[in-house]
């Protein structure tokens, strides 16, 4: 199945501040139940609705997220 977009989270660098989640138009981002090495509940994708807008990536203060959007054919 083709998807519209996705994100990659650099888990160990995430500080669990949730700013990414507040700016996601599709409520794609949720939080892990385990903590990373720093002790934060890190950002994860909780559904496949990502449209690759990059909002989460640009607001993340720690540059944790890389955002991808399906290339136009």
């Amino acid at each position, binding site marked *: 199945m083709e998807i519209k977009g996705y994100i990659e989270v650099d888990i160990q660098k995430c500080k*669990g501040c949730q700013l990414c989640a507040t700016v996601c138009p599709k409520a794609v981002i949720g939080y892990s139940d385990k903590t990373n090495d720093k002790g934060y509940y890190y950002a994860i994708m909780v559904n496949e609705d990502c449209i690759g807008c990059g909002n989460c990536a640009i607001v993340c203060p720690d540059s944790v997220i890389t955002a991808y*959007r399906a290339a136009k054919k």
Partner: protein
Amino acid sequence: MAETITKNGQEFDVVWKKPNLQKNDMHYCPGCAHGTLEKLLQEVIDEKGIQHQIIGVSPVGCAVFAYDYMNCDMQEAAHGRACALATGIKRVMPEHAVFTIQGDGDLASIGLAETLHACNRGESIIILFYNNAIYGMTGGQMAPTTLPGQITSSSPDGRDPKLSGMPLKVANIVKEFDGTCYVTRQAANNAVNARKLKKAIEKAVDNSLNNRGTSFIELVGNCPSGWKLTPVESYKWWEENMLKYYPLGDLKTEGGIK
């Protein structure tokens, strides 16, 4: 933005990825927009390919370690003196863009004289003013920019304007100077604002490279730790209080001493 990758047989454009910052983890508290400012600045440096032509000054305040993150030559100033260092640099390196990053204690309190005079002389530097209405690094004391009634560790009953005056609106002051060519107030609490902030930084860097006068970008920011709020609560307070008192937008887009 032309970078494309293939994953599971499908092609994707890279919409956003980490710029060429140094590898160190930033020490900023979770959710603090200090990090956003530096990464956007680094993006602009990368995109313009001017790493060899920009010199920065970090303040005393939470951004003191900016030189551990930014990937360009940097100097560390004494508390409040960043604009004086930047003046010294720019005067002997006129072909370079020169920036300062400064908190509100650094810029609007102890370094107000240095800031105003640099703007008045029209030094072609970029002043990145992180206004979080509090002294973050020293544990959340009142700053000149603290809002009326705002509780801080040194205004436990809320800032009383009778005792401490009203918040200082530095951008409004420096916009009056002939020396400034660009004065703007931006935020980074959502993607729209973060993108605008980046545009503002681009413009300011151009101004500095072309010696057009002082560019003053106030980033109305947050300080979850100093405000004693969770990151998520701080985003709300940021929008409901800070952005109301410090409205966003350009205060001036042309000027400089001709």
